[in-house]
């Protein structure tokens, strides 16, 4: 589907030679933090953006050479629910159906069908302005399905939804997957990719850094984890040192928390052993537990930073910036007080 896609915006390389392919009837998860290039890839495949190099094919149709034919085969649900608020749910669907040049009766039939499928029958005659966030998203996805697309693009479909709507949206996407809708799903949530995607492509800074099923990826970073919660986070280095002889690879301190995770091969007897080691080393521990690897670990292992961190190199600036303003602010105030 995508072959060596590259795109730059001015100085920024949004995509650097990205390849991936979606198997028919499968859900491909494009996983990465904000600004990784996920949306850029989707926009190229949806003919909204031209790649600087590389090829993108939908059903074998080159999206750059034949955008209109490609458009007939795709459905796009972007990051914002693109519904016309002033129209009803039914009218929204019918409108897109007409623009797909479906016969009027067919557009109406499909619109009714989709309202049913997405649990919107009761609100189909209400204007979309009155819909909740979750309902808008469902209508949005329904609109992208009315043309009967070969590939459905879901660009961060749960961003901005409350937790309940998010789970509802997962069910919807699950069902699409079961119905054999070929789907490209982008997400920055690891649990979402884990749950919904058949295959995952991890991208970061415009490059593919890993691909495989969720299980493959987890296996790559070691299956099991011991998690130590410390009384004092500054002990993290010592803990990693003390447990190095048991670890499979290196332990990681999770930034911003007092938790250290250690990848291990075998869990049997590990908890008492770790407690003994740490006790002997004189480290105060609040909790020791075990868990299987998550995609968070995968991301951390691949990039050296947690997935939620949007901008790894922004921190130093924040740090230095915090020191300057107080001095600048205090002196004028004092001068005024003296005079």
């Amino acid at each position, binding site marked *: 589907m995508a072959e060596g896609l590259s795109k730059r915006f001015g100085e920024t390389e949004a995509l650097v030679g990205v390849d991936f392919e979606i198997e028919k009837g499968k859900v491909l998860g494009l996983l990465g933090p904000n600004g990784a290039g996920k949306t850029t890839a989707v926009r190229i495949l949806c003919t909204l953006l031209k790649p600087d190099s590389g090829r993108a094919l939908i059903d074998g149709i080159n999206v750059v050479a034949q955008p209109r034919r490609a458009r007939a085969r795709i459905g796009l649900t972007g990051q914002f629910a693109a519904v016309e608020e002033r129209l009803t749910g039914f009218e929204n669907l019918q409108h897109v159906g007409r623009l797909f040049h479906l016969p009027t009766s067919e557009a109406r039939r499909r619109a009714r069908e989709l309202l049913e499928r997405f649990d919107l029958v009761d609100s189909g005659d209400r*204007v979309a302005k009155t819909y909740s966030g979750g309902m808008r998203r469902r209508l949005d996805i329904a609109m992208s399905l009315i043309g009967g697309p070969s590939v459905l693009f879901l660009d961060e479909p749960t961003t901005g939804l409350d937790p309940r709507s998010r789970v509802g949206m997962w069910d919807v996407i699950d069902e699409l997957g079961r119905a054999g809708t070929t789907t490209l799903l982008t997400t920055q949530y690891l649990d979402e990719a884990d749950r919904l995607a058949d295959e995952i492509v991890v991208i970061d800074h415009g490059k593919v850094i890993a691909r495989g099923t969720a299980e493959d990826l987890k296996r790559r970073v070691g299956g099991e984890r011991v998690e130590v919660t410390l009384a004092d986070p500054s002990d993290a280095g010592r803990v990693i040192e003390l447990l190095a002889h048991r670890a499979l690879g290196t332990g990681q301190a999770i930034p911003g928390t007092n938790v250290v995770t250690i990848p291990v091969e075998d869990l049997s007897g590990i908890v008492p052993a770790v407690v003994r080691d740490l006790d002997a080393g004189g480290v105060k521990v609040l909790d020791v537990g075990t868990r299987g690897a998550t995609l968070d670990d995968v991301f951390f292992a691949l990039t050296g930073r947690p997935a939620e961190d949007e901008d790894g190199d922004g921190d130093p600036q924040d740090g230095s910036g915090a020191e300057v303003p107080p001095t600048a602010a205090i002196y004028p105030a004092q001068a005024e007080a003296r005079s």
Partner: protein
Amino acid sequence: MTVTEQSTDPAAREEIPSGVIWAIRDCWTEASRHLRALPRNPEVLAFSTIQPVMFVLLFAYVFGGAINVPGYDDYKQFLMPGIFAQTVLFGTSFTAVGLAEDLSKGIADRLRSLPMFGPAVLIGRTIYDTIRNLITFVVMLAVAFAIGFRFEGTLGEALAATLLLMSFAYAFTWVNAYLGVSVGSVEAANSASFIWIFPITFVSSAFVDPSSMPSWLEPIARNNPFTTATDAVRALYNGRPAGSDFWLVLAWSAGITLVFAFLASRKFTSSTR
């Protein structure tokens, strides 16, 4: 990497029908998106009508007694055509705002990813705004009649004047369409459209005779196409000959429409954003 999804299915999906008829249908489908919503949001019509009605009353009663214009005994007969022209031009700013809204809400992205005639999104919007402008105009005309404005010429001349107004406004709808698809946000579209509409409509013959302006401003006002349009419309409503102004206004309208329709469509359908 190989292509695995080459359509081997013998009943390969039929191609999306296209052609001129479908392009026209797409335009109408898009226009009807907005038209359908119009009666549901009466405030849109109310606000685009209240302001011009206020202008009619303010200018007629507040300034009416103080302003004298050569050639017209009754200032109302001079003023109303100017206000009509200004109002329909102000009305075109809705195009910029509406399109900017479509873009910022992702609706434009959805539409651009459909196998439709791309510029139909813009053409549909300009059709809608022209219809809405016409409704506003009719309301304003009724108010003008209520306070004593009259067609001094034939009905044919009045219709010709109305045609001029609408074609001139249509041209400027496209200027605003271009602004709407070029600026980044709804707020920017709103200010960007008023920034130029204000001077164009005021530095003109709409409210006063340009000869009353300072000598540096007068030539600007006289050569303003909006002055030409106002003069032609005013002449026709008052049953006076519009002369070459009539054709000049149509030529301006056609020229502006062509240039900006091209620019706006190219901007909207290009895959560079």
